[in-house]
């Protein structure tokens, strides 16, 4: 079981007086769903970028099973909020692009891309250009493309952030389904408190100035969905409301205003 670990990571961007993140440690095992929440400027995305290998920590270490993370790689596929898809390709070709980078042969590529589009419930939309798709459909293509890399870890940077509330709800279960199907470890950044509770196995609450961990929560609502419970029943559970209040409290703790 591969483990992605951040060990006392400090991120300090060039030209900034203070670090964005200071001494944050994370551990994501395969099958974990770790969600980073916190107010703006708490360094959520910086941490995700360190895990992706897009940003190098100033101090501390990022590693997978002890091997330092030096660069981005297909074992850690990233999905961004604003779809980083290629508008000149169709949905199917976007997914196939990831397979092509892995050296998959054209015939097998087409078959796998079909499978992945089906997995994200986009079979039938494969021939559509990206700009012909809705926001939710685009994010599904982005997820399918990330999964095409068969990553050990999925890094999701506010993947549902640009979607409307209803699409968001539906995409939450899609994410849980994909997580269960791929058995990848997930590290996700979000602003949504309910979203964090629904999805996570572990919630890490960060606070700004410079970014540091305030609290971590173990949660089980995502696993309950994976075990077959209906999402609405889970959200209606009094335990969900209690967890939500506690999490909200932790996020806004120490905030004056």
């Amino acid at each position, binding site marked *: 079981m591969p483990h992605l670990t951040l060990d006392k990571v400090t991120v300090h961007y060039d030209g900034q007086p203070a670090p964005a993140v200071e001494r944050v440690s994370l551990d994501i095992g395969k099958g974990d769903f770790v969600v980073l929440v916190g107010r703006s400027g708490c360094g959520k995305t910086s941490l995700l970028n360190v895990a992706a290998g*897009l940003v190098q920590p100033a101090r501390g270490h990022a590693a997978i099973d002890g091997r330092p993370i030096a660069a981005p790689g297909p074992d850690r596929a990233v999905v961004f909020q604003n779809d980083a*898809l290629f508008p000149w390709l169709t949905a199917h070709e976007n997914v196939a*692009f990831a397979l092509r980078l892995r050296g998959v042969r054209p015939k097998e590529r087409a078959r796998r891309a079909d499978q992945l589009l089906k997995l994200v419930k986009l079979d039938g939309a494969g021939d559509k250009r990206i700009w012909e798709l809705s926001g939710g459909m685009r994010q599904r293509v982005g997820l399918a493309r990330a999964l095409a890399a068969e990553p050990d870890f999925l890094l999701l940077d506010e993947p549902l952030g640009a979607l409307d509330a209803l699409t968001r709800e539906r995409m939450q279960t899609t994410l849980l389904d994909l997580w269960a199907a791929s058995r990848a470890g997930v590290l996700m950044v979000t602003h949504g408190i309910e979203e964090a509770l629904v999805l996570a196995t572990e919630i890490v609450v960060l606070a700004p100035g410079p970014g540091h961990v305030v609290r971590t929560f173990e949660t089980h609502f995502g696993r309950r969905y994976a075990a077959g419970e209906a999402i609405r029943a889970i959200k209606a559970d009094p335990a969900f409301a209690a967890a939500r209040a506690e999490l909200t409290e932790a996020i806004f703790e120490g905030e004056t205003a």
Partner: protein
Amino acid sequence: MSVGAYTERPGAKAGEADRFSVPWSRPRPKRPGVSARLISALTILVLLAAWTVSAHLQLVSPVFLPSPAAVWAKFVVVARDGFVDATLLQHIGASLWRVFAALIVAIAVGVPVGLAIGISRVGRGVFDPLLEFLRPIPPLAYLPLVVIWFGIGEPSKILVIAIAMLAPVALSTAAGVRGVPRERIDAARSLGATRGQVIRHVVLPSALPSILTGLRIALGAGWSTLVAAELVAATRGLGFMIQSAAQFLVTDVVVMGILVIATIAFALEFVIRRVERALVPWAGRE
């Protein structure tokens, strides 16, 4: 009251613009009336009429301004019999050939240069000042130097036009490359793309709309450099035709040549806009 008649403020009458409404937020029904295109057509007609009348009343000598009829007659004659040893079609062909040969040179040099400016600090450091130096120089100023270096043959003519086209192609490419969304590149890298693959499969296609805009501007710039390029030792070409006519005060050929150049420029613009729409349908819709 039906739902359709519901308004936010019941006091306001439906359909009546009230002073609190924000006019640009509301889709206005298309007013049946004069379109900008019709106004343009009318403007041209009025100018033509003014030209005809002034020529008819002989307000100015035909040497200065020949009548539209004379220009049209000249057009027919030159198209059929030619002027200075070549038909109009041959002049047009020679000029178009030079402009397109120059465009290919400008693309071959300008796109890689723009790419270098866009992706590397060294590239930007080297090429940016060179382009900024080259850009404001009028073609007539570097024409003598090009002739001294490369002779009076066809290559120098193409080169003069290509130099004028280089800056728009390179700068538009650079702008397009710099405008590629960071996340698009990061996503490709996280899928395992190498630097070369990122450039080929992500950066260049992303920059394509901007590159095509550059080509459109370059064609305009090149076409307006035509007369300068055909100043020395040309035997054919629209620019050459106009200059020869000017030397003998054949004003109707000069005017006719100007109109032909303008018409072709207009047609090129139209064609390349069509090409843009066909090649980069996603531009502006991402």
